[in-house]
């Protein structure tokens, strides 16, 4: 069963030059999930931010976890959300 499409938001510090990491993650999610995502929103921000949320749930924060997220962990969070959506 296919779950309800989920939305991913990537907030990155534009002043810090984090565009490549934001784009790499976007590309990885597009390849992995395609139309199972309703949207990927990329938000240029500041203050050393690199946050990723899946359907409103923060799954990675540079301030909280330190560093950039592993693509695998973000994919896993998206997969879990899709699975949850398919069981409601």
């Amino acid at each position, binding site marked *: 069963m296919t779950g309800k499409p989920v939305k991913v938001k990537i907030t990155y510090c534009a*002043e810090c030059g984090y565009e490549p990491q934001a784009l790499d993650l976007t590309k990885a999610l597009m390849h992995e999930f395609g139309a199972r995502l309703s949207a990927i929103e990329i*938000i240029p921000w*500041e203050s050393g931010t690199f946050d990723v949320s899946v359907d409103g749930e923060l799954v990675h924060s540079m301030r909280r976890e330190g560093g950039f997220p592993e693509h695998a962990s973000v994919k896993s969070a998206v997969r879990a959300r899709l699975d949850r959506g398919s069981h409601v």
Partner: protein
Amino acid sequence: MTLDRARWDTGITYDAFKAAMTRNQERFAENEGRVVLDPETVRTFKSLPQRLRVLVLAEDWCGDVIANLPILGRLAKEVPTLDVRVFYRDQNLDLMERWLNQGKYQSIPVIVFLDENFRELGHWIERPASVTERRAQERKKIFAAHPEFGSPDAPVDQLPEDVRARLQAELHRMREATLAFANSEVQRELRELISGVAV
């Protein structure tokens, strides 16, 4: 890592860095135009008894580089005995390793004063702590005055787009309002750094 004449010559001049910028060139030029040099800063550096090499680690995408490197650039125009060479951080990680912020962060800009023989006289990293502190206080005030911005620690992606845009505008205004203080603090730290070393 050896810093010698051959390595020094791989650095580029301040003007060459400006010319090679692939982004933020306008902001950089605007910031440079708005730098007000404190006469005490110019006097301090002009009074140095010998020519100084000034090694800079920078990248054109970095906000602190865009904000603070123009101060050094303007100073070097006034003080011809400052020989500034810029090294791109990501192409010179061995240099970066030598001047890590708190021993672990690759913060830029890094400004290193060296004598003719490449002996380090002192270095300065990123931005003054006083500026970080002042801006954090001002940021708190913004959030206190605008409950619609939510918690300062909450992810901004939770804010509606229009609210997020207003928050961004407020933060921009705050940075503008603290610009003169920030520039003055950078100069104070550079003066103190160079005054504190025997040249």
